[in-house]
């Protein structure tokens, strides 16, 4: 199989440098580079999309659409941001567009109060045996925009500036959304412990 990854012996490239290298080749129509690019980002991109849609089939559709867009627009990438920022931005808009067409996913309405809750129950919930189930339950009830920011900050470990470029909003908005998402999670986890108790 043709190897399109950067040549061995060169300096260790960062993920972004590798992605830029592959994008340049994709822009010239290199299908092998496209396959490598897919393998590099497929898992984290799928997870990001799925975290908002909660539907594996639809998430796979959007993953497919996002990467087709990469194939079509690879030669327009100007390197002003990291490749992952550009890529997640495409996926984010495609996901939001799909969510608008569905009526069963809340977009911006408040699903549960975000009032600060300093009860130790939230932490206890995170340490409980059923924490995975509790986290999943509470994440599902976050606003879509908060869920996106939390996924990008805690799963992809992105800085707030990069998240702001992906979701196309001011940096302060990202920080505020993350703050409110944390408050909402605290409140939800505390109430879960209350329900268990």
């Amino acid at each position, binding site marked *: 199989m043709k190897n399109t990854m950067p040549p061995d012996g060169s300096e260790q490239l960062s993920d972004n440098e590798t992605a830029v290298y592959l994008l340049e080749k994709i822009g010239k129509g290199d*299908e092998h580079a*496209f*396959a490598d690019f*897919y*393998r590099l980002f*497929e*898992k984290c991109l*799928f*997870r990001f999309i*799925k*975290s908002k849609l909660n539907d*594996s089939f639809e998430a*796979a559709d959007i*993953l*497919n659409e996002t*990467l*087709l867009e990469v*194939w079509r627009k690879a030669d327009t990438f100007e390197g002003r941001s990291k490749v992952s920022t550009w890529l997640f931005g495409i996926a984010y808009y495609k996901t939001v567009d799909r969510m608008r067409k569905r009526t069963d996913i809340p977009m911006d309405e408040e699903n549960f109060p975000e009032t600060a809750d300093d009860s130790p129950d*939230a*932490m206890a919930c*995170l*340490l409980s045996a059923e*924490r*995975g189930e509790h*986290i*999943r339950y509470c*994440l599902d009830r976050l606003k879509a925009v908060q869920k996106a920011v*939390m*996924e990008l*900050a*805690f*799963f992809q*470990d*992105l*800085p*707030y500036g990069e998240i702001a470029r992906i979701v196309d909003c001011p940096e302060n908005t990202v*920080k*505020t959304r*993350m*703050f409110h998402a*944390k408050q909402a*999670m*605290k409140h939800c986890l505390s109430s879960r412990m209350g329900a268990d108790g």
Partner: protein
Amino acid sequence: MSETRQDLEQLLPFYVNGSLSPEETNRVEQALAEDPALQEEIDFLKHLRDEVKDLELGNSPGEFGLRRLQKALKEEQKQRNSAETSSGTVVPLSIRGWRLAAIAACLLLLLQTAVTLPMWNRSGDDLIAAGGGTAAQLGGQIITVTFVPEASEENIRNLLLAVDASIVAGPSALGVYRLSVARDSEAVVEKLLAHRNLVETAQNDSSGYSGRKAGQ
């Protein structure tokens, strides 16, 4: 302006994921030294991050997804190629066939016109509409007629058969019909006007007759 507690708390998730600038990291650590309560907040965020990372969201499409993508790419390329071919200089065989057929049809039409056109000026010849048995006697005389609103189709039909007239045009928006008659049109107009229960007006178009109402 001094930094509020909330401003600082908003940096904590990014302190936990290690993405703050060195200057912002210093600010957080300084605040942490002054307010140990912030450590609880950081501990909570660290646990939350670990749990989010461990959360299983199902298997990604993997190689199956790649094959699907490659298939979609091939389809797209095929469509692009066919679009380029149809707009370019290379004309497919099927399109060339249609062009030849169109040219042949045009030549046939030209030949037919050349044959039939001289016949139009020959007096006494009628052109028969190919579509029906109502011989449109274009070489005959034309009468314009209107019927009373109460006239039934059966009565009109019987009258037209009696005077040997055919409808060649109409009705117009005002209910005017044009009739073609083979015989003396003046006599036919008289006959039509005699049926005042059916005919409202009748006029001989062939002779420039000004028209009369039934009963006049």
